[in-house]
């Protein structure tokens, strides 16, 4: 005879697979997530590998008015593009096209003022919403240096030491690299790779517990010759199977995308082989089962379908907390991290991605921590289903 929990599992799966909304959501999270990840990383790599210094192109209006300034700019590796006369709208247009980080406009009286030693105006047009901050800074520095040079020369001509004008000297050193800037970003992305474990089974978990009760078929089911734990186990495994499917597909897709990208460019590594990935997937099976068990237990206890839904959306965020706290406090990987479900999976994946030998112990801990939690959740749900209070509420 077929075990009762298997009968329930098969029926619930069949019913779920006929629900287009649930399937759509499952597909969305399985496919969208890695693709989004790939897209974001691709942009980061693009930005990181773009040469920062060489090849700044600056549009200049009125090139002929300041030949020495232009020469200085060229010396500092700035390419000058003469655009001819442009009104403000034309400049705005030019900046929006994102071809040039800045546009310089020399005022009509530039030459006149310059020779008369009056301040000669140079307009620096830029778009602060654009991300070319460093390039803009570069151009500004050149302008300032040029101004300082001319000032010094004029002071010298009057017999004053230019040093009097600079009582202090500021020198900037930026130790940040693109790689270190993006490392934090990547870390947070890895952290949420396991989130689908909690998303994929969620709507089904609500539907087959709180939903079934609201549709008033739970009483009929509970009046059948099956034990409470058999019914709970069937429902739990239904949500679990969906979560496992979702996470496995998603991890495989993410792995394919991450292996294909030149991550070294941003100082990250993805030194995972397919067998390693399989190990990560296997270690995440209990996580999925734990997520499903928790959701079944919570949804069963909720008073209504609506309450179950909102309860689970909140519960979905809880497993993210340890990961966020760890990255905020910048804790080093420690053994206890493998004992916290979700965090253990994140840590395991991060350590494996670094390419180091992780060993069997962390994998076993990751596996066991979630498995035990899953068992507790299911035991609680079964105990709850047997209670009179639950019977009265169906």
């Amino acid at each position, binding site marked *: *005879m077929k075990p009762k929990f298997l009968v329930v599992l098969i*029926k619930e799966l*069949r019913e779920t697979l006929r*629900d287009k909304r649930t399937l759509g959501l499952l597909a969305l999270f399985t496919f969208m997530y890695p693709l989004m990840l790939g897209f974001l990383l691709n942009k980061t790599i693009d930005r990181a590998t773009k040469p920062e210094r060489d090849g700044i192109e600056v549009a200049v209006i009125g090139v002929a008015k300041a030949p020495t300034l232009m020469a200085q700019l060229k010396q500092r590796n700035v390419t000058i593009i003469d655009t001819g006369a442009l009104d403000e709208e034309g400049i705005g247009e030019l900046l929006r096209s994102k071809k040039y980080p800045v546009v310089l406009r020399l005022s009509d009286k530039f030459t006149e003022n310059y020779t008369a030693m009056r301040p000669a105006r140079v307009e620096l047009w830029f778009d602060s919403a654009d991300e070319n901050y460093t390039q803009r800074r570069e151009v500004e520095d050149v302008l300032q240096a040029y101004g300082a040079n001319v000032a010094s020369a004029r002071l010298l001509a009057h017999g004053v030491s230019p040093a009097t004008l600079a009582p202090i000297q500021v020198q900037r050193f930026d130790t940040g690299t693109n790689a270190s800037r993006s490392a934090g970003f990547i870390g947070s992305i890895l952290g949420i790779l396991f989130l689908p474990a909690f998303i994929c089974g969620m709507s089904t978990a609500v539907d087959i517990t709180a939903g079934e009760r609201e549709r008033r*078929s739970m009483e009929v089911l509970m*009046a*059948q010759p099956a034990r409470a734990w058999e019914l709970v186990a069937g429902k739990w495994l239904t949500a679990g199977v969906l979560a496992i499917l979702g996470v496995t597909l998603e991890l495989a897709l993410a792995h394919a995308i991450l292996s294909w990208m030149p991550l070294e460019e941003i100082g990250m590594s993805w030194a995972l082989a397919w067998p390693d990935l399989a190990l990560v997937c296997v270690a995440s099976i209990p996580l999925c089962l734990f997520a499903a068990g928790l959701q079944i237990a919570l949804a069963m206890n909720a008073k209504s379908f609506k309450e179950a839904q909102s309860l689970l959306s909140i519960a979905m965020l809880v497993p993210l907390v340890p990961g966020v706290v760890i990255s905020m406090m910048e804790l080093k990987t420690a053994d206890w991290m493998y004992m916290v479900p979700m965090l253990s999976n994140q840590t395991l994946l991060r350590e494996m991605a670094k390419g180091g030998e992780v060993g069997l112990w962390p994998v076993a801990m990751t596996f066991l921590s979630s498995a035990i939690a899953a068992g507790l959740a299911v035991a609680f749900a079964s105990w709850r289903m047997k209670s009179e209070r639950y019977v009265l509420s169906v």
Partner: protein
Amino acid sequence: MIEVQDVRKQFGEVKALGGVSFTARDGQITALLGPNGAGKTTLLRTLIGLLKRDHGTIAIDGVDPEQDPLAVRRNIGFLTDQFGLYERLSTREYLAYFGELNGMKGAALQTRIDEVSELLAMDDILERRAKGFSQGQRIKVALARTLLHRPRHLLLDEPSRGLDVMATRALRHALTALRADGCCVIMATHVMQEVTHLCDDVIVIAKGHTVAQGSPQELCRRTGIASLEDAFVSLVGTEEGIAA
């Protein structure tokens, strides 16, 4: 055979059952009469072991549902006040699900589904999914589920509500056949006409107590009232029972 002796059940302060005793015999259809809130649902749930009684004894073919609920449920067909259909399953799949939960399988199960479907004249909806079923079609499917595993005992909570004339006749026909087979049927209902036509025995409960048990004729004789409905009102005791 279902024997109930002085069963009491209390939820906090609320006394749902204050002492119910009756015997429902095999080969008989026993009506369970009582105003709304008399404790019928609690009684039925206690009979299949979903609720634990505080006091008294229950024996279903000699088995106590509290001791061995699974054995009792295997032998009971329970039609609740809700049908509990699944919208995305066809009638056949629905029946197969509950058949398997009752330990049936394979070809025997499919044959039995066809049998039950013929008995209740529901071949037209057998392969259709439950979404959009009418009230009558829903109750037919639920009834089919109740009869599927050939239980010796049937607990039916208002089985005829929402049925059209043809379906009511089909139901009556099915119940008579089950009685002839020697099944023990308990049927909660509010339709007096059905009771006089169909039932051999009547249990009247009010406010959690058994008020009377006997054949419809006996009840009329005992109260000295000719119509069963008036006799029922007199037994339940004043209009209060009806208002509740």
